[in-house]
């Protein structure tokens, strides 16, 4: 396409979708030094971004005929960026909650995450089969997540440490022995087990002993500026055509190409 004068003009008229994400949360989004696997350049940087969120962004842009621009932003600035219009949407694994929906508009979920628990394989809780078995555990999770705010309190007598600011920091706390368990979602947990071979992933889903959460709470969505119904509808129109299995397939691919898996 590029190279011809005509298409250049057309390309300029084409709308650019500015998507913000952290680019530091594999397998959702990460930074890599080259464009292998179809990674997208990060705006204003020599690095590239890839991951589930980027794949989703690419898919959306393909469907809608937009150009894609990935903006790497700190977690705390994702919302101000979209609210102020500096970016068009945020695809960064944000959980959809009713509180948040008052300040931004969320699309339909673009991934259905399940909740898992990480422990050390040589630790006291390696054989836990249910939430009840975690009784008295010292645990933590990420700040402002359903895992920290509503899962951890379900563990009996849990010693809940202050919330961690990011997934890697949370894993450091577990690795160093400052806590015995962390609660997070499946993709993160799987990545963590690659990075830290001495971790064990406990998945209680489907059993009676699972964390009790509403479906609504664990789903992650794309956020746009409040009132930007035009874009919201366009995004939803893409997501509507996709099924849960499509998501799972995409996530599997993301996990398989994430730097840790190479």
């Amino acid at each position, binding site marked *: 396409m590029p190279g011809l004068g005509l298409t250049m003009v057309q390309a300029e008229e084409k709308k650019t979708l500015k998507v913000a994400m952290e680019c530091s949360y594999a397998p959702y989004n990460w930074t890599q030094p080259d464009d292998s696997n179809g990674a997208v350049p990060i705006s204003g940087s020599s690095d590239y971004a890839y991951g589930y969120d980027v794949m989703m962004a690419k898919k959306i842009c393909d469907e809608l005929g937009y150009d894609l621009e990935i903006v790497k932003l700190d*977690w*705390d*600035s994702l*919302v*101000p960026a979209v*609210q102020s219009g500096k970016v068009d949407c945020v695809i960064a694994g944000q959980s959809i*909650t009713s*509180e*948040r929906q*008052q*300040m*931004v508009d969320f699309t339909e979920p673009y991934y259905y995450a399940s909740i898992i628990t990480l422990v050390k394989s040589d630790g006291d809780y390696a054989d836990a089969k249910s939430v009840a078995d975690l009784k008295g555990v010292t645990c*933590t999770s990420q*700040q*402002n997540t359903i895992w920290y*705010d509503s899962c951890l309190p379900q563990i009996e007598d849990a010693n809940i*440490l*202050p*919330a*961690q*600011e990011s997934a890697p*920091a949370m894993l*450091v*706390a577990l*690795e*160093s*022995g*400052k806590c015995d368990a962390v609660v997070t979602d499946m993709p993160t947990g799987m990545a963590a087990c690659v990075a830290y071979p001495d971790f064990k992933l406990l998945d209680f889903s489907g059993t009676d002993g699972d964390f009790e959460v509403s479906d609504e709470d664990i789903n992650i969505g794309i*956020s746009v500026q409040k009132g930007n119904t035009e874009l919201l509808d366009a995004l939803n129109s893409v997501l509507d055509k996709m099924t849960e299995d499509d998501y799972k397939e995409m996530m599997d691919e993301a996990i398989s190409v994430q730097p840790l898996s190479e």
Partner: protein
Amino acid sequence: MLPETFWGRIQYLLQQYGSSFLSGAGNTMIIAIVGTFLGCLIGFIVGIIQTIPVDKRDSAVKKTLVGFLKFIMACYVEFFRGTPMMVQAMFIYYGSAYLFNINMSMWFAAFFVVSINTGAYMAETVRGGILSVDEGQTEAAKAIGMTHVQTMMNVILPQALRNIMPQIGNNLIINIKDTCVLSIIGIVELFYTTKGVAGAYYTYFESFTIAMVMYFILTFVCSRLLRLLEHKMEGPQNYDLATTDTLAHTSGLYSYPKKKEEK
């Protein structure tokens, strides 16, 4: 439900999270004040050591010893000043548990990291302060037989202190704001509280407005208190004549003829 307006939301957040903000601010201040205080002490000690004079006449033992001490101090300053406090906190808190199985308390780690960092900055500040005191003062102190430490403690540092008070204020304020990196080891101070509130409702502008005002109040009060202290340290503008006979002695004190008569 969140109110519609910006100010409305701020009020709502304050109602909901007011006490969290206050306890966060409390933690911030405790760490900042303790850290600054200990940091100043460290800075003064390093300053004294770094200015020990060595002379070619000194014995080899003394020269090596002093040289070694100064080297250690320089390493300390360059290392702690030169690397991010967050990373230090992480290594000290998690690293000590991981590598040596030391279970340091979160608060101990916090005080330790902040003090040791402030100390590294203060060491340089104190060096500047010592430079700023007239050399004649050192000479006079030495001339009456004071050792280096006595000279520093009695003459130079009290004068340097006055010149670096504004900088101590700066450092306290930097600490008030920089303790936020301690969230990495789980200290819930003002900034981390704010992030929590902001992330829960996606009210970043509103929450950070609250934080900004609170930070401003904390730092402003501190800076004014330090200014007061500074003025107090200056001492009285005028002195009282140590005589009962004020009329005769007001200014020129032309009193020596009297003494002559005594003879």
